[in-house]
């Protein structure tokens, strides 16, 4: 695996521009969680011209719905969910300044195009490694949509959260390039 690059949130254009597919990153700072239901509500607010419950400028949104935290723990198991379900909402969030998304699985061409246009990165976290990933989450707090339970927007404080660059700001795709390299038919 390539050298590990340390990233501190919030991210700038310069931070994301230097990243390329296959880079392994360790993310430290504040990130926000959001899945389908939270995204839908945020897009509805935007369409009504209202303010979002979080300022997404420079931020990373992690597509995750964790298990309940045990007493004394900040969070439960917390691996990524499949990202394509957020494809309908992601370009708008990037237009508002969001710089990164963490999830797993392929993105739609229009999402990849928006990453190029607005300078943003799609990071992959290891799906199903919820226990490992939970250990890099030091604090968690619900900041919006508490009624959604695991799907509420959480503000997470992470330390060296491991991820891999899947789509960079140049339009490259690790899923395409990686499979090409090892395909045997």
């Amino acid at each position, binding site marked *: *695996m390539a050298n590990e690059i340390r990233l501190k949130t919030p991210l700038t254009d310069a931070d994301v521009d230097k990243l390329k597919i*296959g880079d392994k990153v360790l993310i430290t700072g504040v990130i926000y969680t959001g899945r389908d*239901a939270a995204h839908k509500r945020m897009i509805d607010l935007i369409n009504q011209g209202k303010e979002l419950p979080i300022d997404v400028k420079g931020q990373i949104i992690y597509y*995750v*719905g*964790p*298990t*309940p*935290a*045990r007493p004394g*723990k900040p969070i*439960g*198991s*917390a*691996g990524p*969910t*499949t990202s*394509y379900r957020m494809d309908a909402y992601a370009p708008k969030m990037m237009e508002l300044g969001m710089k990164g998304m963490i999830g*797993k*699985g*392929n993105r739609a061409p229009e999402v990849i195009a928006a990453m190029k246009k607005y300078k943003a990165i799609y990071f*992959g976290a*290891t*799906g*199903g*490694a*919820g*226990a*490992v990933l*939970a*250990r890099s989450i030091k604090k968690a707090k619900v900041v919006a949509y508490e009624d959604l*339970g*695991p799907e509420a927007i959480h503000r997470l404080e992470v330390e060296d959260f*491991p991820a*891999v660059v899947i789509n960079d700001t140049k339009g490259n795709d*690790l*899923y395409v*390039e*990686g*499979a*090409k*390299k*090892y*395909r*045997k*038919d």
Partner: protein
Amino acid sequence: MREVHVSEIVPIVKKLLIDANYKIGQDIVDAFDKGIQKDESPVAREVLKELKQNVGISAEGEYPICQDTGLAVLFVDIGQDVHIVGGNIREALNEGVRQAYKDGYLRKSSCDPFTRKNTGDNTPAIVHYDIVPGDKIRIMAVPKGGGAENMSRVHMLAPSAGVEGIKDFIVNRMKEAGSNPCPPTVVGVGIGGTFERTAILAKKALLRKVGERHPDPVIAKLEQEVLERINKLGIGPMGYGGTTTALDVFFEVEPCHIASLPLAVNVQCHANRHKEATI
């Protein structure tokens, strides 16, 4: 006739679901090890090491293997000489689910399909009953996550498609699923029966352990062939590229209508969680 009180069933269902979500089978760990040694991609080997580390942490009992702790799928084989007393078996199974997901700190993922409102306790369980000879009840718990389930398909092939058509459909399905179902996957395949029966066969196929071949050598060979073809796709662990795309492929086969060739592909992520108990 042997009597089994419903109160015996509740704690067993609870324990099976908690154990399934925290303790992965040794067959999966062994399959990770094989990939760590053999995968041609260094990134793939790193991912597999992370997955192995993950199941080690979860076995300590504080964090489930994955945050998607699934819908509670239960296969319940009831011996024909058993008389269930003290209440309703459906309610007992649901109570076991309720207690597991609350006391085991598991995520409740069951919701209304239209309003998307969470049912709050991960019920109802998805139950497949069978009546079998004997005086025992066998319960198999298979918590099933959404990501891989979404990549599953049922297809009614024309009988003329034959064995090649079956193999091509499965391989293409896994190619299209790509990184979405959290590879390396376990692929359950149902062949034959009817539209609904073939899907249940595919789900049941996932109860096998990695490396456990079908007893019919002809079908066992087909499983191997399809596994090899999937692993040549290059998708690799998490879709980052590599030679470990599927850990195994399991076929379950039954006779079908002369006009039909039903085929189901039930995709399962690397966390192939299942536990069973007999009462």
